[in-house]
């Protein structure tokens, strides 16, 4: 070590006299206190001096003991032009996980993506998102993702470098160019990736691509091949349909493209009081699905009767003269058929069955009702489901492959033939997984070559033919991962010289386009593309050169969406000759059974298990059952009563030689003798969020071995129509539900009461609660009149009884923020809940805490049932802080930690809060949330930290929104109406020098909503949407009679029922 003597300045070097004198002193400058002391030193010591010195001494001793921590911040040496610390940047990108698509804007702050917003430019989703889309950003910061490639040999899993892996795999592939190679992937909707795969096929003669969809539409594809001559899914338009019939198709939940369908569906159900008209929705289904919850008329039938129902419908429409068997609900089918007929050309029937025969019947029905060319566009091909079950089966039966590549799917776990696939993987010489985690499939491979998260990757998507959406990375790879296209290119040597037509580099023009924008991407791509596309990014840019209509690459990348210049025509037409007697006979006989039936379905948040590691997905309650963390078996209330089963009673379910113990969830609306279990649970390998961690104080290794829920894939089929037994075990297990069965009571009908008569039985009084308002389209005028009269009465009562007349707070000046929520548009999907969770740094609490009713959601969707338990009516109501202008929470806080802003917002001052919880008690809406523990690790006391929160890791915390305070333990929190967005909007308007316009500020729940059910705005602005909501005839506020003066305006739900259908 060198012993250089460092000097600070010339003075020190030269040891000037002044310096020597100065350096002996602790402080460079003379302290005024010292002077004072010196002045008084002359005097004899007295009491005053003593006290003075004592005070100074204690103060300085105290100050000296407060050590300033050393903080290291590394600023940019050269600040990138587009990054300003504290200002968010938005980049357009694309979400596609293999089943669901959305065009999104990625909000990044200081280089980290923190939030996704729907892309309003997309005509496909129109800015809507889903729970999965919203939550997918957290998977980016998932510590369970592989941080580098792995080499796997049984239980021996070792870290590898890409260089080594590339060497080994390339060598193996080169050695046998005509080998039998297979790429198994979920549906790929990226045209460039498909082109890439195609060019691989030209390189390797026996290269096969098998599409495996865990939630396949294979029955439909096969039927459409017969009906339209092409195995494709057409484009549906629910907005155009006046009568919608869903045959076991959960099109608002999981079927094909729910986000898009919700938007269309909601459009068809916006009611105008003057000319009341809305679509009428019939749902024929077994399990209570999200779609069924929204139906005007729901017909519960058994799973085995769906085919018969379709056939009955066709028969009533005159499409077949087959003898249709009777089933419970047949008479309803007649009615549906009549209405379908009447709505010729404006009707749509969709079916979620994976049975080709049923789909053939449905195609025939759609022909009969004139759906083709009107509500179904056969000319536009939908790419969202391409997997044919038969392809996968023939792969499994086709014997040994030389190499298998698995991309974005986990068939070993989620296929009903998972064990066979695992065997195939083990037999092949080379098995490579591109999956991001070490899941069951990756563990069955030789190499795990983790692909990057989609927010770290380049890509494109073509959900419908010609409709392009681009994907760009918004962060460099966090781990040592590589997107799978790059891996393929490296291993096949494509990056060393490709046989593909590139644009002439000379044609890739210069630096700026017409808008004066720099065309960096094209330039880079163009220059390097010449002979040698280095990577997939360059490949992608080259691929789109000249293909996009009316947009440059940069512009397309900026917008996120574009259209193809030329779209190959998919014009197909319906051929009617396919409903033969064989099909009819099959539907009549084979599908009918009498015993218990079991369906294994994918829910809207965990899917096939892909999102089981995502804490936000886990913590968002299922829209229908309101259950978080873990699966359950849905049983009908009648069955539960007969068998004395309550929520949480563990049932033993056996079929096909396999059995599981799973807790019961008594689900109103579930058809008697049918059962349903959500998929995606019981995974052997998974991250913290998918583990059943019972201790509050951190997970042990043993906890990590215990998966949440049960694996039901080994039942070998998604639909079991016979041989199912369900029996009680006597055990009990908590369901982590955020809302319990109590809500069934809310409008319990009373037998034997005449119309208009009210029950005097206390139990039934609930129905008068002024929380939910429902109307019936056929009776809208009277219902509106009743509502107005009631509101009038309350308003007068409030005025008469007020003891503060003339002293009420006035918010008529300036802004008065408010929300409007159309209960008729809200389908209850829950995207807003997740969006709010992300935007506002709402903590994840984990299963045990949800069981203890400690969930922290600022926004929840209340679900109420009414009517018959076996087939109830359902209503969803998003509830957040109502920002009452007479807030009961505010006056009870002893320290004024919650108070009212001049703009009508109820605000929380976290720093002031001492946590008496009085405000939460006094909140009639129960929207206030208390930090029982330090869920985020926000406190300075590490022991407070609640280890149950799976996001609470160094990496996980990167997703936090810096604009929103992270709350420590012991403080109350609640919806702020996204006050950070309100402030930003106001500042932007101020910078613009213009008045704030309606729509400038949008809350997180509002932007996430696919059905535009939520609007935010200034209630003082006569032109604002929220003002229009307030003036709407259906408008009401919750609990108006207690005079809290809520700022959230609800529009009553309207059901499209005929007068004779009103219960």
């Amino acid at each position, binding site marked *: 070590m060198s012993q250089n003597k460092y000097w600070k300045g010339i003075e020190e070097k030269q040891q000037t006299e002044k310096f020597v004198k100065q350096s002996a002193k602790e402080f460079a400058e003379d302290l005024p206190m010292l002077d004072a002391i010196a002045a008084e030193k002359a005097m004899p010591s007295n009491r005053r001096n003593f006290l003075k010195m004592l005070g100074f001494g204690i103060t300085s001793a105290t100050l000296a003991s407060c050590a300033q921590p050393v903080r290291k911040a590394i600023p940019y040496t050269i600040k990138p032009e587009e990054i300003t610390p504290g200002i968010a940047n938005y980049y357009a990108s694309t979400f596609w996980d293999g089943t669901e698509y959305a065009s999104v804007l990625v909000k990044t702050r200081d280089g980290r993506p923190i939030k996704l917003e729907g892309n309003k430019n997309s005509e496909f989703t129109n800015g809507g998102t889903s729970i999965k889309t919203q939550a997918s950003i957290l998977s980016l910061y998932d510590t369970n993702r592989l941080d580098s490639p792995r080499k796997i040999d049984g239980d021996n899993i070792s870290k590898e470098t890409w260089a080594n892996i590339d060497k080994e795999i390339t060598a193996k592939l080169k050695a046998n160019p005509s080998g039998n190679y297979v790429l198994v992937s979920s549906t790929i909707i990226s045209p460039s990736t498909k082109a890439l795969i195609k060019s691989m096929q030209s390189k390797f003669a026996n290269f096969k691509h098998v599409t495996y969809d865990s939630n396949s539409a294979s029955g439909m594809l096969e039927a459409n091949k017969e009906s339209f001559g092409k195995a494709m899914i057409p484009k549906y338009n629910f907005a155009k349909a006046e009568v919608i019939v869903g045959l076991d198709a959960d099109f608002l939940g999981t079927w094909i493209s729910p986000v898009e369908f919700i938007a269309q569906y909601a459009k068809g159900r916006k009611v105008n009081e003057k000319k009341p008209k809305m679509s009428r929705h019939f749902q024929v289904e077994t399990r209570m699905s999200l779609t069924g919850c929204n139906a005007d008329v729901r017909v519960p039938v058994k799973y085995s009767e769906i085919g018969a129902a379709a056939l009955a419908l066709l028969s009533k429409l005159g499409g077949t003269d087959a003898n249709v068997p009777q089933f419970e609900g047949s008479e309803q089918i007649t009615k549906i058929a009549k209405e379908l007929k009447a709505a010729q050309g404006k009707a749509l029937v969709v079916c979620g069955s994976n049975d080709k025969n049923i789909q053939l019947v449905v195609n025939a029905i759609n022909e009969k009702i004139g759906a083709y060319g009107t509500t179904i566009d056969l000319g536009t091909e939908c790419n969202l489901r391409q997997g044919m079950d038969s392809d996968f089966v023939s792969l499994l039966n086709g014997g040994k492959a030389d190499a298998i590549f698995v991309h974005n799917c986990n068939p070993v776990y989620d296929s009903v033939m998972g064990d066979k696939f695992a065997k195939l993987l083990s037999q092949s010489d080379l098995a490579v997984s591109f999956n991001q985690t070490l899941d069951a499939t990756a563990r069955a491979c030789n190499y795990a070559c983790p692909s990057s998260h989609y927010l770290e990757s380049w890509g494109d998507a073509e959900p419908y033919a010609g409709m392009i959406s681009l994907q760009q990375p918004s962060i460099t790879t966090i781990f040592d991962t590589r997107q799978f296209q790059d891996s393929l290119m490296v291993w096949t040597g494509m990056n060393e010289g490709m046989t593909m037509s590139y644009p002439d580099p000379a044609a890739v023009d210069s630096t700026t386009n017409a808008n004066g924008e720099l065309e960096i991407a094209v330039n880079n791509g163009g220059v390097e593309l010449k002979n040698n596309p280095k990577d997939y990014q360059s490949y992608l840019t080259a691929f789109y050169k000249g293909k996009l209509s009316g947009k440059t690459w940069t512009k397309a990348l900026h917008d996120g969406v574009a259209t193809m210049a030329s779209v190959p025509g998919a014009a197909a037409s319906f051929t009617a000759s396919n409903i033969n007697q064989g099909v009819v006979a099959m539907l009549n006989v084979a599908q009918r059974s009498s015993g218990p039936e079991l369906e294994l379905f994918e829910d809207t948040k965990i899917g096939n298990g892909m999102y089981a590691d995502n804490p936000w997905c886990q913590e968002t309650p299922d829209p229908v059952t309101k259950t978080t963390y873990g699966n359950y078996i849905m049983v009908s209330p009648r069955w539960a009563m007969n068998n004395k089963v309550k929520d949480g009673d563990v049932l033993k379910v056996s079929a096909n030689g396999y059995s599981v113990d799973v807790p019961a969830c008594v689900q109103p609306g579930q058809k008697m003798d049918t059962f349903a279990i959500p998929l995606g649970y019981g995974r052997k390998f998974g991250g913290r969020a998918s583990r059943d961690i019972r201790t509050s104080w951190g997970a042990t290794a043993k906890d990590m071995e215990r998966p949440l829920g049960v694996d039901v894939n080994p039942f070998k089929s998604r639909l079991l129509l016979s041989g199912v037994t369900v029996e009680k075990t006597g055990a009990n297990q908590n369901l982590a539900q955020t809302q319990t069965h109590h809500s069934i009571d809310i409008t319990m009908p009373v037998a034997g009461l005449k119309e208009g008569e009210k029950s005097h039985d*206390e139990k039934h009084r609930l129905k008068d609660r002024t929380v939910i308002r429902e109307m019936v389209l056929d009776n809208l005028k009277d219902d509106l009149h009743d509502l107005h009269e009631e509101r009038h009465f309350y308003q007068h009562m409030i005025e008469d009884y007020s003891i503060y007349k003339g002293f009420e707070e006035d918010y008529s000046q300036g802004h008065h923020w408010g929300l409007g929520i159309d209960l008729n548009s809200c389908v209850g999907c829950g995207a807003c809940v997740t969006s709010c969770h992300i935007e506002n740094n709402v903590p994840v609490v984990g299963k045990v805490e949800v069981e203890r009713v*400690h969930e922290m959601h600022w926004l929840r969707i209340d679900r109420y049932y009414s009517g018959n338990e076996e087939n109830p009516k359902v209503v969803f109501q998003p509830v957040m802080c109502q920002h009452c202008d007479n807030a009961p929470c505010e006056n009870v806080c002893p320290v004024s930690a919650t108070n009212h802003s001049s703009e009508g917002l109820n605000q929380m001052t976290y720093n002031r809060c001492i946590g008496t*919880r009085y405000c939460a008690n006094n909140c009639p809406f129960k929207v206030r949330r208390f930090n029982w523990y330090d869920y985020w690790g926000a406190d300075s006391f590490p022991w407070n930290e609640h280890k149950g929160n799976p996001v609470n890791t160094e990496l996980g915390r990167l997703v936090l929104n810096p604009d929103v305070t992270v709350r420590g333990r012991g403080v109350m929190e609640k919806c702020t109406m996204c006050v950070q967005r309100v402030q930003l909007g106001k500042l932007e308007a101020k910078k613009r020098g213009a008045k704030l316009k309606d729509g400038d500020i949008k809350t997180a729940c509002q932007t996430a909503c696919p059905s535009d059910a939520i609007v935010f705005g200034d209630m003082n602005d006569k032109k604002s949407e929220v003002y229009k909501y307030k003036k709407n005839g259906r408008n009401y506020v919750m609990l108006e009679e207690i005079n809290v003066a809520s700022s959230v305006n609800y529009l009553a739900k309207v059901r499209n029922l005929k007068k004779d259908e009103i219960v």
Partner: protein
Amino acid sequence: MHYSSPVREPLITGKKDLHQLTEDICRPVETKPNLAWMIALAISLLFLTGGGVAIFMTVYFGIGEWNLNRTIGWGWDITNFVWWIGIGHAGTLISAILLLFRQKWRTGVNRAAEAMTIFAVACAGLFPLLHAGRCWLVFFIFPYPNTRGPLWTNFNSPLMWDVFAISTYLTVSVLFWYMGLLPDFATIRDRAKHRLRKVIYGALSFGWTGSAKHWQRHESLSLILAGLATPLVLSVHTIVSFDFATSVIPGWHTTIFPPYFVAGAIFSGFAMVQTLMILTRKLLGLEGYITVAHVESMNKVILLTGSIVGIAYITELFVAMYSGNIYEMYAFANRIGGPYWWAYAIMMSCNVISPQFFWFKKLRRSIVFTFILSIFVNIGMWFERFVIIVTSLHRDFLPSSWSYYVPSWVEVGIYLATFGLFFTLFLLFTRTFPVIALAEVKAIFRTSSDLHTHQQAKLDNSKYTYKEFVGDTSPIKEEEVISE
């Protein structure tokens, strides 16, 4: 101040003279504690330290250690708080209101009752502190000029009013108690043989000499403090009831609460006094000073206040039914028939039915029965608070948020800790302070009156002869004259 009534029972029984009185009352302070006391203290300390673990868990890890939830923000914490505050009502009532009403029988029990008040308020005070999510910041609740913003309190909040009400009550109670103790401390000081005792009790007695001026000031101060404390007895629980009455929650939002709470507080306070006094008189051998007559008088108060509470319960039900307000109706229907029906049943039977037994003189004068019944009332009154707090909260306006609550061991532990604290303090009190107000008792002691022959007949039903009752009339010793 000599008290003699031809129709009332004597307030001090047994063969006593003034010296004997001093000896009896000072004995626990001047002798070594017996085994029973030691065991009792050990158990109390065990509860205190055991419960201390629960307190530690709450402060260290957070309120999440309790089973409160999104819907039910207060449970055992505030139930216990209101319960202890209620118990703390009897002491001041006995010492202040009964003083103003010249109820001489109060002198036998007022000292211990006042001590009980102070200890109960101390236990109660623990809960608002511990229930706060950030208990280390609870000082935010005090309105004083500060540099945090400035952080000022919200005078609209009933919790704020609580702070004033309870601290004032505690202050006045302590003053009143201590003022009464002065002459008694002086007695102990004068009797002390050990120098240390002399110094300590000398300091505690503030140099009391027993001069006429001292006595005159003492009497005046008693009256002034009694006058101050009397409205406080009514105000404290009135204000505690505002915690609920000013809210919007059905079951809380009730104008009947102030009188209802005050009656309930006196009811539970007297029940606790009974529980403690019956034990104390037995353990310390003070049967002659806390007599059946005392017990009976207090039982009459219990009967009265218990009946008021009963009427309040029924009024509440009627009002809910009559209101036509569905939320109010549901709240009460749910209390009776909802998931917490058992709590309501316990409350009704313990508070409304059980005190009615005191209409029977025989039961009223039975020590054993009174003891058992006082326990019932204590339980019943605890459940009253539980019913009001938890059953109102668990199902309010929006059925989507309804929930259920059972306490965690931590919450139960804290409750047990307050028992430990209370009994530790009380046991220490019995060994360091005169449990009975010596000076005041002497004031009602007959030393020189005539033979009350007509009263003699009344005494026939007691086992004492006149001679035994009056005791031997030996000359009064000097020191007693002084301290009287």
